[in-house]
């Protein structure tokens, strides 16, 4: 009997002629990945959520990862995509902040600066055709003003009162358009949490790379707070009526 060859995308061998004589290439697929980031503005600042899963292909490989970090005093960064590249970015930002600490001159490295810096790294890497396989959501409150920005592996950037990456761009974004946009200044924290949990629940139902263990984070004038992992209430009774998958 023939042995079974497993073809995971990033372990697929390239043809020998390309490896030996072809152009220089870099990694062209992510390997261990995190799925969506959902974030939006509300009355006091910005709220964000990610789940705790880092998938290896379709396998739920690491189930206790944190994909949101606090950078400096008042900035929250959420990530989807390759976790190794995220670790590289974390290290780069850590260096940046150590340098700021060393300067000891009372100058402030604000959210906009961190966003600009991340964007430059992302665009720089894509221009080397060696991108970091991530989307980043950068949030912060500066001088009483909320900031929420997005940057992806092309170095594309935009700012918006609501941002969802990955699958969330399809499944959560419409919900945010309906319930958040136009009301950012009125939404209370309780309302924001409810909307966010709804988004995450929809994502958990329909995104095969998501996980029912997530963290929520908020950034306000007081600073960044990242919650402990928590699950959502879900209802799978309807699953019995779905025909054609499994048995």
């Amino acid at each position, binding site marked *: 009997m023939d042995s079974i060859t497993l073809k995971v995308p990033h372990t697929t061998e390239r043809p020998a002629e390309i490896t030996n004589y072809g152009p220089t290439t870099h990694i062209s697929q992510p390997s261990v990945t995190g799925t969506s980031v959902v974030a939006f503005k509300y009355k006091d600042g910005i709220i964000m959520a990610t789940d705790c899963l880092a998938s290896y292909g379709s396998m739920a490989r690491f189930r206790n990862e944190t994909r949101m970090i606090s950078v400096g005093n008042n900035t929250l960064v959420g990530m989807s995509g390759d976790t190794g590249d995220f670790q590289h970015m974390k290290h780069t930002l850590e260096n940046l902040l150590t340098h700021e600490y060393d300067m000891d*001159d*009372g100058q402030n490295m604000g959210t906009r*600066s961190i966003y600009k810096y991340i964007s430059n790294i992302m665009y720089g890497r894509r221009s080397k055709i060696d991108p970091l396989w991530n989307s980043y959501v950068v949030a912060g409150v500066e001088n009483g003003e909320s900031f929420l920005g997005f940057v992806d592996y092309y170095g594309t950037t935009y700012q918006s009162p609501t941002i969802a990456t990955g699958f969330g761009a399809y499944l959560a974004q419409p919900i945010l358009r309906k319930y958040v946009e136009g009301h950012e200044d009125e939404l209370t924290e309780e309302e924001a949490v409810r909307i966010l949990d709804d988004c995450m629940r929809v994502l958990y139902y329909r995104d095969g790379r998501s996980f029912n263990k997530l963290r929520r984070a908020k950034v306000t004038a007081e600073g960044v707070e990242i919650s402990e992992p928590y699950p959502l209430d879900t209802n799978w009774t309807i699953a019995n009526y779905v025909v054609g998958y499994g048995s």
Partner: protein
Amino acid sequence: MFRNQYDNDSSTWSPQGRIFQVEYASEAVKQGSAVVGLKSKDHAVLVAVKRSPNELASYQKKIIRIDDHMGIAMAGLTSDARVLSNYLRTEAMRSKMVYGRALPVGRAVNAIGDKAQTNTQEYGRRPYGVGLLVIGHDDTGPHLYEFNPSGIVSEYYAYSIGSRSQSARTNLERNFETFQDMSLKELIVQGLRSLRDTLQQGKQLDALNTSIGFVGKDNKMTILDGQDTQEYLDLLDEGEAMDTE
């Protein structure tokens, strides 16, 4: 002029632990015409006397804008100052492009200080022959720094460099505690008053030889020359008239 065997290059210590080449470079600063810098809690100001080699020539520029939030005034070898100001402008642009923020003033000055230090440690180089007063405004308010050929950078409430600048410093030391709450106008006039103390007998500040630069919380770096300085020169004279009455 005396000579000693330890003063030929900047890579030799004298037995007393001095580097003569650096001290000589500081002499070059004292040859330059005087510059005065001072600050209040909202503004920082530079005033300078320009020199002209003869009546047909223009006056040598003394104040250079680096960015919207920063400017420098120089005394000494002006061509060395241009190297440093180009570097500062590049760094200021880099800060804007990489971090989207104005380059913090202290870091800017220290960057040229570090650059100047190299010239005091390696054979075949000479220290920069220029002193700078740097003003700027950033997250921590207005600043005034002095840069000198040794690469040492210091922050001041008020300071002066260049020829006969000690007279201006004496004036500043007497008054600097009152600068904190001054308006921009008062600050400029105060600067001119100190600057005037550095002039030789028979010389005067006028619209041709005076240069003024300022920056503040709500003021981008601005340089005034020629007729634009007249308003402040008039205020200076009025102030004198009032004092003598």
